[in-house]
């Protein structure tokens, strides 16, 4: 309670007594809340204590792809979650697992049907492109006249196609097993 000097008080002509209890009360009733952190005044802005708003959480049983289970707290209302792909059957987390290397998802048998119809020349060509990058420029050059006529800069898939064609034309002795692609190209 800081007492004010009489000179600081507002002059009121009606009040004879400047130090009447009513007057002092009105002058100190309102203390402005200070927001500066360094002030040591007991007056302080009130902080609202919020009720935590949170979602309902359930206990869920998670089954990993290898059959192991554990429970988690989750906001999902399902009682059980069966995982099809997780760290237990992913090649990145199991680098020494032979069964997980080069997994080819062919559930509907479409890849097998494709190979049945068009042969395996496509697979071997792409593999040779990936494995021998030094050999590709020559093949691309040979296949270039046909490709450059239409569009000088082709997409990667088109390049692979050109490689396949040129590789088939050039590398007949190298790839003796591909006889079926010719049938595929005609169609």
């Amino acid at each position, binding site marked *: 309670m800081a007492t004010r000097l009489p000179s600081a008080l507002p002059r009121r002509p009606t009040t004879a007594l400047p130090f009447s209890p009513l007057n002092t009360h009105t002058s100190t009733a309102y203390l402005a809340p200070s927001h500066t952190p360094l002030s040591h005044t007991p007056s302080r802005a009130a902080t609202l204590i919020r009720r935590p708003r949170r979602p309902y959480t359930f206990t869920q049983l998670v089954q990993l792809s290898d059959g192991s289970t554990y429970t988690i707290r989750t906001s999902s209302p399902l009682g059980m979650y069966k995982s099809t792909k997780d*760290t237990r059957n992913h090649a990145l*987390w199991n680098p020494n697992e032979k069964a997980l290397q080069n997994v080819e998802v062919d559930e509907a048998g479409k890849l097998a049907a494709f190979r049945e119809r068009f042969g395996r020349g496509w697979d071997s060509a792409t593999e040779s492109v990936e494995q021998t990058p030094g050999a590709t420029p020559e093949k691309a050059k040979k296949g270039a006249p046909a490709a450059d006529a239409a569009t000088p800069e082709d997409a990667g898939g088109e390049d692979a196609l050109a490689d396949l064609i040129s590789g088939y034309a050039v590398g007949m002795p190298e790839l003796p097993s591909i006889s079926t692609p010719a049938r595929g190209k005609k169609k």
Partner: protein
Amino acid sequence: MCTPTFRSLFTRLSLTSPASPISRATTFSISSALSSLTTTAIPSASSSPTQWRQSRSFHMTTAQAKSVVPAKGSKKTGKKSKKRSGKGGEGPDPRIVNLKASMPRTVPAPLRFARNRALRHWTIHRAWMLYQRKERERQAHELERMYQSMHHACEELRNTSGPGTREEGYLYRVAMEKHGMYGHNAVPIEYARSQTETPARRAWNHEWTR
């Protein structure tokens, strides 16, 4: 009925610490508190169609009331509002409405416990705090003990002359030789297999080689 479930949450893997009866009791009391606390509903895949319709109609009324006003003015504004609202001008997306309804702004009132229940909670809470504190200290002491024994072992290695005719401290120098601690292969990726409650179908891969 729900005892085995909740017990299993705490006694999942009894390798480190046997769960005390107190922790179980805490779970019980608190779970009852939870049911009274939370009223919000999550949009679940299995939510009944009646609920869906209710929440939808609730929001639709306000949306329609808004959209009615510009429709009075002219056809142009009506078309615009149709375009903005998206599918056929039937108001906002019902999925958005559902999401909004599932996150209400109201919060439940604070809990009010009677005397006995408050005392019960207080006791359980204090016991749970005490248990946690003891667990923390036990783990810290265990780690400190391991660190001390590593220190002693290294001191022993440093003061012994190595196998055969090796000079003193050879084994110590070999042990302290650490390379690639901050590289890619510091921790093998197979190391990260977290504990589970039940084992896998093939619990151990015997063919595994480095």
